[in-house]
């Protein structure tokens, strides 16, 4: 049977209740008649032999690049950088696609007699990965060959000895990246392109950059003018990264870009019902849903979190392309849209979304309230091309428990941001002006980022800036089932049920609003006409 495309359902009397994520649990909600529910396209067919496809891509590069073996020679300095633990979501079943690509690159390097090879996790300002996470991403063979010799490192955006100032773009943006990567004869960057924002020049210009460099585009101004992040021509974030990436290329840094796309087969079969259309649930799906819901309602959130974070996704490779950055990324973007794009006619007054337990910044961690805001308003809201799914002045209703819980090791500055910044202002521009620098340069956060597993001190600001476009666009944000105090701290309105939320929303959008629900998983992107 051929793969079915994305689908917009109009809710009528016969429509069964719709699945909503809510953190570490999920439930069914009955949507008003006439509501729309957007379902993602079904998973694309996986490439049967990923190693063969990878090898083919490396031998047949896109754009103005020689095949990888032709770029490799004895005595050269080769650096392989790779995306960190934030991709893919959830982490994929072994072998991870990074492992497959890097093993293939290393085989070619060995054949060419390259001795000086280093691997760098491109963290930007994310937390350092644990050994277990690195082993999962790279495989034991690669890890054991490099890590014990200090040849597998994690980018340190606060290490002045290992940063290189490249120059300034024509817009005055300072570009400073990892010195080892910048001074290598060849920089191979291995991407997992889960959404259309990932990859391209952003890989090096962001993933290997310092705060000095990142602040030029991770700010409220850029974020408000990225409509959306996923729509490259309309994204100022994209434009800034492209300016920086081109400067890096002009400076002589030779990049061999490898980008991979995955299908949206997100959860293993025991959670398969999550990504099915509800009216197509089999008896087994219904039983799985009932059992999982009941079990999750009985266990404490902490245990539910552990269960979910142990899930490995059956994501499979759908494309791999390599070569010159921009040529590669054009193909990748088309492949991402082929998997995730859904045509949607017109905007809605109310956009509803169930937020899951995970986002790029809490893998093996806690989804704190700032990340809840970022996932809903930074990511889901921005999963569009053309126009936002929800009209200007409309309402977003998110469902999530939004507990004021933080992982002290991963998110220490988030705690202070929640206590000391959000209590003063929720305005991205004001906090940027008054608080950002003191968090970014705080020696304790810097210490924890460099030596522990903490996100950089400025990271919660960036998460808040991700919401800036949505915050400026929306009339109200309502969180169903969230901790009321935490929800109010974020500047949102708490509601105990979806019906309450609709009642609250009617103050903003009137008594007969249109409603559209983003059904997830899996994620999708809307082409709003």
């Amino acid at each position, binding site marked *: 049977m051929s793969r079915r495309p994305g689908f917009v359902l109009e809710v009528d009397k016969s429509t069964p209740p719709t699945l909503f994520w809510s953190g570490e649990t999920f439930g069914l909600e009955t949507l008003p008649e006439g509501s729309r529910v957007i379902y993602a396209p079904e998973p694309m067919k996986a490439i049967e032999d990923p190693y063969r496809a990878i090898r083919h891509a490396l031998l047949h590069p896109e754009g103005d690049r020689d095949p990888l073996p032709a770029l490799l020679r004895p005595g050269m300095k080769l650096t392989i950088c790779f995306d960190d633990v934030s991709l893919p979501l959830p982490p994929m079943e072994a072998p991870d696609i990074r492992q497959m690509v890097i093993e293939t690159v290393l085989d070619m390097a060995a054949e060419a007699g390259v001795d000086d090879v280093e691997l760098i996790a491109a963290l930007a300002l994310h937390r350092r990965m644990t050994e277990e996470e690195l082993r999962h991403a790279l495989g034991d063979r690669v890890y054991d060959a490099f890590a014990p010799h200090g040849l597998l490192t994690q980018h340190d955006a606060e290490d002045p000895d290992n940063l290189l100032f490249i120059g300034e773009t024509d817009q005055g943006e300072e570009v400073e990246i990892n010195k080892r990567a910048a001074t290598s004869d060849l920089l191979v960057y291995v991407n997992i392109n889960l959404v259309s924002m990932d990859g391209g020049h952003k890989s090096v210009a962001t993933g290997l950059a310092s705060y000095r460099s990142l602040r030029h585009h991770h700010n409220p101004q850029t974020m408000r003018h990225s409509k959306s992040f996923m729509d490259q021509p309309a994204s100022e974030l994209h434009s800034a990264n492209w300016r920086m990436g081109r400067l890096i290329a002009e400076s002589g840094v030779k990049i061999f870009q490898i980008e991979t796309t995955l299908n949206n087969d997100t959860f293993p079969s025991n959670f398969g019902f999550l990504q099915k259309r509800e009216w197509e649930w089999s008896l087994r799906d219904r039983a799985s849903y009932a059992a999982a819901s009941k079990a999750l309602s009985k266990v404490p959130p902490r245990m539910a979190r552990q269960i979910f974070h142990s899930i490995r996704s059956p994501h499979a490779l759908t494309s791999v392309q390599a070569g010159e950055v921009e040529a590669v990324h054009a193909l990748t973007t088309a492949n991402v849209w082929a998997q995730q794009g859904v045509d949607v006619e017109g905007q809605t007054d109310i956009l509803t979304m169930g937020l899951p337990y995970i986002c790029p910044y809490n893998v093996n961690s806690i989804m704190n309230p700032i990340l809840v805001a970022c996932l809903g308003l930074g990511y889901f809201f921005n999963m569009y091309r053309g126009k936002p799914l929800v009209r200007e002045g409309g309402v977003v209703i998110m469902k999530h428990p939004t507990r004021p819980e933080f992982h002290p090791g991963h998110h*220490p500055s988030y705690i*202070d941001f929640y206590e*000391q910044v959000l209590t003063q202002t929720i305005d991205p521009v004001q906090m940027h002006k008054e608080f950002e620098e003191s*968090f970014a340069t705080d*020696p*304790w956060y810097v210490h924890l980022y460099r030596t522990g597993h903490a996100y950089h001190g400025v990271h919660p600001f960036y998460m808040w800036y991700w919401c800036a476009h949505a915050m400026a666009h929306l009339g109200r944000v309502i969180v169903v089932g969230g901790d009321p105090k935490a929800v109010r701290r974020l500047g949102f309105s708490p509601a105990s049920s979806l019906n309450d939320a609709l009642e609250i929303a009617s103050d903003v959008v009137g008594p007969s609003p249109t409603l559209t629900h983003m059904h997830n998983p899996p994620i999708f992107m809307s082409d709003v006409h």
Partner: protein
Amino acid sequence: MSTLLFERSLPRFAAARLMSSFGSGQGAGVGPLRLVERDAPTLPANGWVHVDPVLSGICGSDLATLDGRSSRYFEDIVSFPFVPGHEVVGTLTEEATGAEGGLLPAGSRVVLQPVLGCAARGIVPMCPACHAGHVGNCGYIAFGHIRPGLQTGFCADTGGGWSTAGLVAHATQIYAVPEALSDEDAVTVEPVACAVHAVLGAPIAAGDVIAVIGAGTLGLLVTASLGHLAAAGRCATPAAVLVGARYSHQQRLARDMGATEALPSEQLGRAVRRRSHSLSYGAASGLTATLSGGADVVFDCVGSPESIAQSLAMVRPRGTVALVGMPGKVTVDLAPLWHREVRLAGAYAYGSERSEGADDAVSTFSLAFDVAAAQQTGRLVSATYPLARFEDAVAHAGSAGRRGAVKIAFDVRKGPIR
């Protein structure tokens, strides 16, 4: 005349202590405090006058005494039975010369400076502290022509504010209340003076990070005094005043009184860490961790073992912890104090203050009047009670924070309310 009298009674003392285990202020009805009929005390010597109390506050040290939790250190410097009440605004029943030298006619509103130092005790020559103007540090508080008592309200011979019979005060103890001040403002002048003295006694430098633990009456008044005295040029201007307050109304008041940040107590350490650009030992979250740097001065306005430990964890090496809240017998790990050469300083009462760069000393009370007027500290008086309802009043004071209150006082007015 109604008077609340505190008598030495071991069984009642034990009962109060037992009841206070259910909450501060719960033992007033069974403890050594009784409502009795009693005449005004006689004047002990020349230079003393009668004062009719109008409002008299209930302070933390009063509560500790009523709860039976006061330190045994005080046993020899109080005399029984005594009438509590040392935060007093009242009226003179006869003409008198005030502490600042002017002649005050009968009926003048006055605030009591309650310390019973050498002048009040008729001791000549004065002890070195009184001679230097530091009456709060008087060494002779158990001697002279009145019985022992560190303050009015703890001395058997002077009476106290919790009485309609009145009290006796030495001329050096009385300060005229400016017309602009309400009775509520005036009754807070004594604790304001404690706060002013604490602030001026601390080595605050420009740009310092100051932490205030606790936002009851003293914590709020220290916060208010920091701002006012800095603006008046009497102390340096700190970069930030961070206040740890348990209750939301306290946080609101602290911000209103000049706190840079007022946060729940458990968040104060993290705020201090961030403001002082410190690293943190122990807990990554900085919750109970010791800081590499920390606040330059910590005002502990609670005085509990926990607050002292918290102070030591958040003060910088060679910084100062000022104990403003009255502590008792506590168990605290002093290793950080020793290792970091922290100065742990008491901050008790008042006297005269000599600001850096100023030629003349000025009485703490005159500065306190300025702070009280500028900050309208009378707004901290949340409720007043008649003496007959002393059990309710003391229970209210004991749970003030939890009940959204700050300062509870007895209303012993005979005339019109001002």
